[in-house]
């Protein structure tokens, strides 16, 4: 995932206004997602789920048509299957990138090989999801792609009462200083850059701990438990929320 490009990744306007995506819906400027996937049943499920979440979805069952649609519709994000009739998914992405189209792309694939992932990302894909996947995971990743933190020179992250100084490496909730271990600091930084977004365990493992595999023990929950214990002090409104079976969200308000 090419989400984090440095320590100074600060959420831009898009991320700090929580319901950006949904606000767009309100403005009748729906976020357009192009899905290129040859299995119609999978496509149907994905389309329905995206539509439920307020996206405008276009579907192509093959690579050539998909590429045409990507050029004409100018979608905000794309979900591309790796193996497609007509034209390989990676070829589609490569073609678009050559035309300087920067649309974020999530690559889907039944091929889980590590080298394959690397290839998918090198060809210009922004994220990679191996089939079979949970719909929640897919949605979380699409929204993460759409609300990618913009490059920023700010050195302090703020979410509600929470404040993270990236230079001093200190954290505060209101006036209370939070004492964080380096690994906890890294986790909180990642979450604050993506506040109000669902962050799945797999996303956290890949991005925060740089894990390329799913460990047997639920590492994420244990780490998150510790962080939550420090962030949400007694008597304070909880900011870190556990979304059952899916992941975690950091929210400013209750």
């Amino acid at each position: 995932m090419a989400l984090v490009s440095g320590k100074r990744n600060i959420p831009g306007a898009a991320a700090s206004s929580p319901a950006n995506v949904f606000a767009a819906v309100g403005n009748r400027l729906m976020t357009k997602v192009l899905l290129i996937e040859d299995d119609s049943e999978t496509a149907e499920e994905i389309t329905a789920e995206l539509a439920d979440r307020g996206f405008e979805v276009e579907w192509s069952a093959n690579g050539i048509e998909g590429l045409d649609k990507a050029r004409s519709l100018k979608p905000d994000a794309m979900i591309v299957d790796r193996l497609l009739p007509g034209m390989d998914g990676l070829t589609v992405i490569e073609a678009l990138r050559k035309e300087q189209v920067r649309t974020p792309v999530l690559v889907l694939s039944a091929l889980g090989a590590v080298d394959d992932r690397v290839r998918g990302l090198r060809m210009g894909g922004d994220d990679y999801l191996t089939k079979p996947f949970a719909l929640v995971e897919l949605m979380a990743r699409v929204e993460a792609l759409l609300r990618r933190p913009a490059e920023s020179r700010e050195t302090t992250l703020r979410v509600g009462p929470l404040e993270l100084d990236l230079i001093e490496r200190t954290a505060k909730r209101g006036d209370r200083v939070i004492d964080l271990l380096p690994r906890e600091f890294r986790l909180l930084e990642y979450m604050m850059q993506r506040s109000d977004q669902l962050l799945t365990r797999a996303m956290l493992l890949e991005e925060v701990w740089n894990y390329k595999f799913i460990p047997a023990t639920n590492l994420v929950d244990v780490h998150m438990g510790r962080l939550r214990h420090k962030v949400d002090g007694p008597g304070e409104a909880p900011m870190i929320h556990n979304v059952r079976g899916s992941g975690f969200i950091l929210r400013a308000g209750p």
Partner: protein
Amino acid sequence: MAGCDVPPLTSTKPSGQRDPMRQAQFIRSTTFHWALAVAGVLAVFIIVLFGFIYWKIDDYLTARSDRVITVELDSIAGLSPERRLEAIDEKLRQDPRRVQVVAIFAADGHRITGNLESLPPHLRIDAPAQGTDVIRTDRKGSELQTVRAIARRMRNGDVLVLGRNIDEAGEISHVVGQALALGLLPAFCLCLLAGAWLSMRAQKRVEEVNQRVQRIIAGNLRERLPHRNVDEPFSRLAAIVNGMLDEMETMIHALAGVGNDIAHDLRTPLTRARLALERGRTNATNLEQLQAVVDKAIAGIDQSLTIITALLRLAEIENSRRSAGFGSVHLHEMLREVCDIYEPIAENRNIDLRVHASEPLSVLGDRDLLFEAVANIVDNAIKFTPDGGKVRIELIRCDNETIVRVTDTGSGISEQEREVVLRRFYRSDKMRNTPGVGLGLNLVAAIVKLHGFRLAIHAGPGGRIDIICPDPQPSRVALAAKI
């Protein structure tokens, strides 16, 4: 002729073994072609040898004849003209084999005496001995002979011709030719026969092997190639192939076992999912109950998928040739990182997790995979250590090797379990109730093997697993060279 005893024992063509016209095949076989080639070379060699012998003998005989006739000519020439005639007559009388040619001609060319009709036209006078054709005439008639002859003009003008028939040389060549035929033909035939025999023997062996292999292909995995206890290429080859077949038989059986294990491990969560769905369909009365049922089913399916993913990943690592992407991995840093990640989990269970890696050591490898291997071992160690126990990650430097050691105060892995623990899906009985797919140590073993490292599992009490990373070969050689 030694060459024909040992025609090369090289391979025979195994192609077309099922051809019923096997008898004719030995002619096409490589062994036979080799025998033929050896026989040919041998024949050429013998012919050249005999030719050389003939040429040498011929040369020698001619030189001797020349010397003899020169000496005789000198002695006759030294006599007075009358005595010369007597000597010539005497000489002709003493020549029962009719090899002598001697005559004296007057200056005008007519014959004074001797057994030559006339002075041979090509014979140069006062020259050294030379070969020429003459017509020899005596009481028994005249005949054309090839001789070595010498002619000299006497002081009185007569020309004395003295010669010697060299048909002897012809006889010698005849004898040589006979010897050649006697020696060469049997040798050549022997060669061909030996070639044909070896070829047929090889064909027979190949056919025998083919039949056995056909039986193996047909599914009889117990079948082995015929193997005689002699040190001979075919037997050695058969022994090698048999060794391979033994290994493969074991592997196939193991694989079949794994297949059963996979089926079992997949069936368990799928059965749970199915039962939940089935019961939910009939019994759920509201949405919440139905959702609970579906959650259960999804969990079952997810577990099956996890098993499949783990298997695919194992296969991927086992089959990969990723050494091209290897780099220097700083083990001390990596171990700290593993410890850092697992610390909260250990803390939750009141387990004392510590890393002892003071020395900065690095090995050549794939960082992500090595991280995964160590993380897996540590994960296991924490899982099987009772609350309040200890887990240590150590980095040890020994002669020529670096060791990553993970010890715990858990039950350890017993002697009997050590081998089986590396089998796919093996979970000791005490593990059956712990979450996990049972592929963890397999994965570790596969990663360790990919790097050319070794995995050592020590017997209890307490668990201890070592990843032994030997130093790369070249440096060891260089070290040895220095000493």
